[in-house]
């Protein structure tokens, strides 16, 4: 009955480097769910935070170039795993509703900026277009026994007028997916608190403080692992976890998964195709404990 879902796919710069496993696992689960992702040809950087701190027209132009690329594919819906890219693409679209702003952007592009393309995150298409129930039906190896905290980051849902997705203070999209996969989700009060974002390099101390608080709270709530949807958040929490420990005197060893990786595991995909080995904090013990409870139950029934 359902028409297969097709999207233009905008990976974002970090997918070629530090968040390669997010990209791998996103592609893998979409394939498993018969969602077609076609790469945006010759996509370029959205400009991220640095661009909009310099100028809004420049920032929008960098995003708009990619929107034009999508339009040239004949597609009207684009998807990206990265909330930062999404935020830039959506903000550009929002601002370009103003004709005079759009003209300025078009001038930088040297062609008319497109305003027809709809953009969403991978998370958003999974819950809004595909559906939790159908995801649930695809689960082969439930994540029973896994207790996670879902961390959305600050710009996945904010500002609500632009992002137009889930609740701005208390999003549930990832929580619901995790529950559907069979995991236990702890109530995590800092779902939308900032992790320190791109200050990892210029002001590491800030990241140590903010991301440290996230890890502390997740641990306090009883989470075995954190699950994220943002490359920057994941990098701060995962790659810098040791730095955090030494800065704060903490002893965290908390795996930081992309939600797509956990979905893949539950769908029975291999760790290799999900890039599990790319994680810095070794998730071995957590993964090995997966499904133990569930599997034994299945056997006893």
């Amino acid at each position, binding site marked *: 009955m359902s028409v297969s879902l097709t999207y233009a796919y905008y990976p974002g710069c970090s997918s*070629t480097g530090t968040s390669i496993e997010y990209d791998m696992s996103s592609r893998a689960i979409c394939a498993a769910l018969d969602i077609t992702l076609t790469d945006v040809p010759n996509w370029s950087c959205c400009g991220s935070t640095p661009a909009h701190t310099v100028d809004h027209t420049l920032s929008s132009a960098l995003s708009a170039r990619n929107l034009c690329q999508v339009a040239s594919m004949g597609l009207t819906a684009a998807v990206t795993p990265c909330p930062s890219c999404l935020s830039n693409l959506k903000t550009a679209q929002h601002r370009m509703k103003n004709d005079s702003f759009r003209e300025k952007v078009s001038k930088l592009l040297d062609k008319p900026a497109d305003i027809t393309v709809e953009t969403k995150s991978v998370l958003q298409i999974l819950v809004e277009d595909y559906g939790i129930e159908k995801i649930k039906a695809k689960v082969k190896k439930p994540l029973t026994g896994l207790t996670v905290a879902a961390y959305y980051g600050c710009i996945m849902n904010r500002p609500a007028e632009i992002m137009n997705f889930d609740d*701005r203070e208390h999003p549930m999209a990832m929580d619901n997916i995790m529950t559907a996969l069979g995991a236990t989700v702890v109530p995590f009060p800092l779902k939308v608190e900032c992790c320190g974002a791109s200050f990892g390099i210029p002001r590491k101390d800030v990241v140590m403080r903010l991301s440290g608080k996230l890890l502390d709270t997740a641990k306090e709530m009883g989470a075995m692992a954190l699950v994220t949807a943002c490359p920057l958040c994941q990098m701060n929490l995962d790659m810098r976890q040791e730095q955090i420990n030494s800065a704060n005197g903490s002893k965290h060893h908390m795996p930081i998964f992309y939600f797509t990786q956990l979905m893949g595991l539950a769908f029975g995909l291999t760790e290799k195709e999900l890039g599990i080995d790319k994680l810095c904090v070794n998730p071995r013990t957590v993964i090995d404990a997966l499904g133990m409870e569930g599997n034994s139950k299945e056997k006893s029934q």
Partner: protein
Amino acid sequence: MNVINLTSSCNSDFVRQVEEESGQQLSLCYQCGKCTAGCPYTTEYDIPVSQIMRLTQAGQKELVLKSKSLWLCATCESCTARCPNKIDVARIMDVLRHMARREGYGGVKTVKTFWDSFLHSVQKNGRVFEVGLLANYISHTGRFWTDMGLGPKVLPKGKIHFKPSAMQGKEEVSKIFRRYTEESSK
């Protein structure tokens, strides 16, 4: 503390300009402090965001534009999301940064250099080239120790490439930057 003479020191052109560029009405702010209350970066600021708003309302251009706070805002949107008067505070911070840049305020050097390096990387490669970005940043700040400790951890993961990814059409991106420079120098 200085005495501020409100009659003589209020730069109303500055107020008007901020309103125009941000599309926000500054008089809507009634100083409830909710932005400061939720700001994750307020500990790093020299002036909390609610006071940036107040000073901007009062036309205190110099005080505002030289503030370090502008450079330490990560646009996490919690101020915007929670403002009872629906002011897009984050956007105002952005606009103030633009103005600070234009007026030649140095800001926080590490942050500014990082952002500049980032954009330089984009301008050159079309996409961000992480190693290149880092090298550029280090060479501009002299902070050689930056994230060196991560090397042994990350390198074996195959996440770090030492060449920028090959992208066709990267000159289109650099043209955008060129046109931007031309337009803004007009």
